[in-house]
């Protein structure tokens, strides 16, 4: 009787182990499948000309996505310039001074913001910038992406500042250093690597956002023309090309997707390798 029960348990154990291993394989395999499929579909269309040329007029074969690469760099870069400082300083507030109801509300709002669908953020940026200025613009796209970045950077900054041991803060205070200098010159640099990593990951995340750009940056088939005009971006170009009826554009969409994936992957790997030596904490 007992032997039979034990044998059954061993079988159930083996079955459950296989099940969890299979689920883990599905989870990690997805990344490999996506990467492999995009590389297979897109690699053939990638060439130097594809990276450096502007799109050809509709109907003409060939052309490149240089404007989308430049556009993504500009829109994401400006979003970082706006979103990272706000997020970092907000995180400093929460970690160093944040007690009581206001801090609770800020933290809660940031967490909710993290879950707001990005197309809604795009609509908000539309109402805030595009509508009053009566034009689609790179600026409005950056603002939409910055809104998405702020809560990510803020919560990440707070977490990394909280990892700085209280003894470091005490050591600096005990030297007769004013509180604000302790925060700015001792605590922030100590957490600096983690904060920077979080900022990089947030940049990579918004670099792939499409929905918020549909009615802000809008897209453009011509070279970049300043901050106050519609601008092409990689994810948006992929979207327009993918829903187009042209075979050539489909191939270019795959190629552009590969470029975007490589960029996001590079940033991710860089950020994670960078983080490792200092704290060894997983993220």
């Amino acid at each position, binding site marked *: 009787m007992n032997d039979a029960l034990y044998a059954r348990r061993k079988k159930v154990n083996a079955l459950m182990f296989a099940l969890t291993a299979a689920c883990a394989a599905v989870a990690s395999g997805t990344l490999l499948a996506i990467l492999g499929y995009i590389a297979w579909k897109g690699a053939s269309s990638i060439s130097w000309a594809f990276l450096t040329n502007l799109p050809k007029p509709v109907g003409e074969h060939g052309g490149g996505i240089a404007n989308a690469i430049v556009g993504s760099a500009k829109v994401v870069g400006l979003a970082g310039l706006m979103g990272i400082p706000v997020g970092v300083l907000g995180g400093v507030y929460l970690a160093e001074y944040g*007690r009581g109801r206001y801090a609770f509300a800020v933290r809660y709002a940031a967490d909710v913001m993290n879950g707001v669908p990005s197309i809604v953020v795009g609509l908000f940026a539309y109402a805030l910038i595009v509508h009053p200025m009566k034009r689609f613009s790179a600026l409005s796209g950056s603002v939409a992406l910055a809104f998405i970045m702020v809560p990510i950077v803020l919560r990440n900054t707070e977490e990394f500042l909280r990892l700085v*041991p209280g*003894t*470091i*803060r*005490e*050591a*600096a*205070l*005990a*030297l*007769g*250093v*004013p509180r604000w*200098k*302790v925060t700015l*010159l*001792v605590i922030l*640099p*100590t957490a*600096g690597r983690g904060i920077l990593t979080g900022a990089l990951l947030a940049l990579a995340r918004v670099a792939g956002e499409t929905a918020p750009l549909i009615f802000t940056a809008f897209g453009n088939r011509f070279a970049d023309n300043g901050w106050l005009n519609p601008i092409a971006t990689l994810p948006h170009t992929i979207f327009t090309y993918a829903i187009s009826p042209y075979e050539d554009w489909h191939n270019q969409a795959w190629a552009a997707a590969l470029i975007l994936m490589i960029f996001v992957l590079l940033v991710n790997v860089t950020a994670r390798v960078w983080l490792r030596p200092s704290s060894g904490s997983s993220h």
Partner: protein
Amino acid sequence: MDMMRPMPLPAVKEGAAPENAAIAMSVRDLRAGYGAAPVLKGVNLEIREKTVTAIIGPSGCGKSTLIRCLNRMHEAIPGATCDGEILLGGRNALAIDPVLLRREVGMVFQRPNPFPTMTIAQNVAAGLVLNGVRDRALIAETVEKSLRRAALWDEVKDKLDAPGVGLSGGQQQRLCIARALAVEPRVLLLDEPCSALDPIATGRIEELLIQIKDQLTVVIVTHNMQQAARVSEYTVFMLMGEMVEYGLTRRMFTQPADKRTEDYITGRFG
């Protein structure tokens, strides 16, 4: 027993009697705690200049709270309260800016806490640099002088630009002492500085404490009664938030005046 004033100090034969030394800090009717819970219930104390005073007592007796009140690090804890009078050379320490007070009353903590982003030299210079000193020659001179006083110079003089956290635990703690000495405080507080160290590292720190007291006043909280006996001229025995006995160390360890002190020293509790 009248606990409102320090014990009259017994006359001792050997050596220069340090009880004639000037008063560096005095504490009067100090009450402190966290929220509603009192930890110190009216402590009176006079710390003599250029001596080592040890504070001993069982865990939770308030000795760390007492030492943290002396440079107002106690206030850095949310909800902490502190009442009474602390005088530093005639000035009311509770009325001056805590930032300025801490430049005169430095502190070394239980666990070595060098700044992880800084080199050995930067750690020592931190108090100067963070407060705006830019004179490189002065900084270099202070770094060497402080490391020498902390008995660490010979071990690190060839690797001043290596990270401070790369040193051993005992070296890190001496680095922290050098960092505290670099701002030239009048009083140095040490809160169980050797509790994370091995006996050899502990011995080095005890030696240096005995050496530096010719230039400043040292107050050390310790769990270790042998340590108190080795390094201090004066000992304060605390129990449940009250100062039970205060006097010359050699007197307290040989002829304690209070039964509770005797019980603690002989290991009957605590």
